[in-house]
């Protein structure tokens, strides 16, 4: 009987050899082969979540860094924002396979177990690379500090904006002498603007893109208007929910009225509708490069202060050091260098629509010339409305997941605003009593530093 030229043992060892070679190959890809190939001595693995209009901007900045620092090879990875990003980051840090540097929303820092999943910044290294606390927005800098250590180096503040098309608003006679939209300071003012703009539209076009059914946007818009009414969430001791259901109802009624009166079409793709001729859209400032690229004549303001006090929803991108058991050495220093470069080159970053956390940028003529950034940057930074600083809050966190859908139900009219407000309060009560799975303590215990 003819035998094949390869017996079982040979076959197994050949397959085994291939597997080993393959895994070495992959390992090499992940540990420094490309750094060696580029002739660089240090390799920095950097994860970020910028996939929108700001994504290309970040890639360009990393390329600029590479040119200036040929000794540091940056291996950057862009991952999908939201759950997928934070899950991967947490698991990488837990499994000791964390990148050297990554981006995180500041609101997620308290829940991301500083000290366990995150390492603190080395202030000596940051100073060496020219990062000084005095150059940063003090509110943002302080939000990055946990137990006296800096865990989140602020890059920017990003806000929800009210974008308006100048062509439609001009036809409706809404713009002032400078070609800007006057700020609406009451709900009546605001709906009068919408009503006037609607007259210019064709059938089927919506007046305002509101993301009425999106759980994240719904929650963010709520946060902004609720703060305009001066509403709070928890007492200082984090033992009681101080959520004001009357104020919340007022906000929910306001949001729902856009749908009820037909200014917003639920389910319409908001940004695309804006480009196609809708006069208003409420979107994050990361849409600036997208809209600008389409050559639309538009302006952008913070969300209108319809309840009197200006406030628009804000979060902040910051740089963090995911936990590595053996953090230190050249890669760690490279991570500090890269982060310092990014935060200081804030004018380039602001091109992506975000408001820089680095204050000297506001003296940079190139930055001041950016439109529509110069229309919204200062007022947005002066009146940020942020989620409560608590372990379950932050971009796409547990709070947004639980409470966002309740706001969305009210927006689209399937739940009454007052009922939704009570529902929101009970969710807050439930979450406040829940223990943080990372350390087994409730928010109150964490605040007081007591053990479980």
């Amino acid at each position, binding site marked *: 009987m003819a035998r094949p030229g390869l017996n079982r043992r040979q076959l197994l060892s050949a397959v085994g050899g291939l597997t080993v070679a393959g895994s070495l190959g992959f390992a090499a890809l992940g540990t420094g082969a490309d750094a060696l190939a580029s002739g660089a001595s240090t390799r920095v693995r950097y994860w970020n979540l910028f996939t929108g209009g700001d994504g290309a901007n970040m890639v360009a900045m990393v390329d600029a860094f590479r040119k200036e620092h040929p000794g540091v090879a940056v291996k950057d990875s862009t991952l999908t924002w939201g759950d997928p990003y934070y899950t991967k980051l947490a698991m990488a840090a837990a499994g000791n396979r964390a990148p050297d540097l990554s981006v995180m929303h500041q609101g997620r820092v308290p829940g991301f177990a500083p000290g366990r999943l995150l390492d603190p910044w080395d202030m000596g290294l940051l100073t060496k690379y020219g990062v000084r606390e005095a150059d940063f927005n003090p509110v943002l800098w302080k939000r990055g500090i946990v137990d006296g250590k800096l865990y989140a180096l602020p890059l920017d503040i990003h806000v929800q904006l009210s974008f308006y098309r100048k062509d439609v608003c001009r036809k409706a006679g809404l713009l002032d002498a400078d070609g800007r939209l006057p700020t609406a300071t009451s709900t009546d003012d605001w709906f009068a603007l919408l009503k006037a703009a609607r007259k210019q539209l064709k059938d089927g076009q919506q007046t305002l893109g509101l993301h009425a059914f999106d759980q994240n946007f719904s929650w963010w818009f709520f946060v902004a208007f609720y703060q305009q009414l001066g509403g709070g969430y928890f007492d200082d001791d984090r033992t009681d929910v101080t959520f004001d259901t009357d104020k919340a109802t007022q906000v929910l009624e306001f949001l729902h009225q856009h749908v009820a009166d037909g200014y917003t079409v639920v*389910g319409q793709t908001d940004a695309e509708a804006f480009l196609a001729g809708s006069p208003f859209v409420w979107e994050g400032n990361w849409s600036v490069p997208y809209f600008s690229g389409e050559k639309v004549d538009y302006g952008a303001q913070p969300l209108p202060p319809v309840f009197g006090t200006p406030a628009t929803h804000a979060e902040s991108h910051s740089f963090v050091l995911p936990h590595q058991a053996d953090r230190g050495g050249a890669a760690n220093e490279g991570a500090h260098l890269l982060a310092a470069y990014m935060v200081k080159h804030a004018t380039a970053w602001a091109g992506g629509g975000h408001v820089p956390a680095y204050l000297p940028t506001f003296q940079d003529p190139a930055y001041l010339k950016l439109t529509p950034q110069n229309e919204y940057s200062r007022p947005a930074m002066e009146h940020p409305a942020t989620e409560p600083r608590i372990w379950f809050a932050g971009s796409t966190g547990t709070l947004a997941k639980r409470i966002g859908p309740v706001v969305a139900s009210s927006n689209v009219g399937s739940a009454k605003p007052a009922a939704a407000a009570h529902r929101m309060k009970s969710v807050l009560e439930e979450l406040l009593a829940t223990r943080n*799975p990372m350390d087994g303590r409730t928010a109150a215990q964490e605040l007081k530093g007591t053990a479980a």
Partner: protein
Amino acid sequence: MTTTLAPATGLRPRTATATESARARWGRRFQHGGWFVTPFFVLYGLFVVVPVVRGLYLSLTDANISGDHTRFIGLDNYREAFRDHLVWNSLWHSVQFTLYVVPCIVVVALLMALIAHHITHLKWLWRLCFFAPFLLPSAVVGNLWWWLFQPTNGMVNHVLGIDTPWLTQKSTAMIAVVVATLWWTVGFSFLLYLAALQNIPHHLYEAAELDGANALQRVLHITVPNLRTITGLVLALQVLASLQVFDQAVVMYQFGPGPEESTRTFVQYTLEQGFTSYRVGYASAISFILFLIIAAVALGRMWLLRLREEDAR
């Protein structure tokens, strides 16, 4: 080696030689087939048995995603799960989905198979059209139907001449997921039915025709009874798969729980607990609850089949 020829009746005395010969027999059998099944057993052990045992252990702890500070807490997670209204709520959504989708799949797959079986012209095209959606990834299907169900510019409303907000109202949200799933997965059951149809002896139809049975009577009295076994299989496979519904709903509702949280399925809630709230222990416990439910369904089916076989004897 005469022992191997002795019938394995179980009546033979258990002597040392018998044990030895059994071992020898096993050894030779293993030589023949063992090496072929070993990779399966190794992979099954590594990727099924080990994770299941580990998951069971985790479900008895308060493990978080970092794996630090894990304490053994006994049945606390299960106690909490029984009080957690979102567990019951999301379980109901998975069951509701199953109740809607399974009968639809059986009926539509059978109809499609009958069409593809009887049609003579462009047979391959029909088969391709019916089966092709099954090859798409769930993300594609979710996004596709998200577009189709859009209220103002979606094709569904355009074709029907209505303006139903399918995805954003509670009453139609689950129906939208069911329709997308039906379109996506019915091709698999269609194939099973098509194969089974080809096995029904043709003379039965000829005899019925001679006896004056019309087309509908032939389908009802010959085709459907002859497909009973395959219908049982389709039902079982679809129930087991539908209880685990997850990806298409998550994509269509962009990781949200749907209008008034009406499409949050059990697997989605498990994911939220494990990977948004980082409660790995609790997520393991609730996934074990689903495991037990699915195992009960599978065992129940086996028991029914056995009863039926005994009846047949």
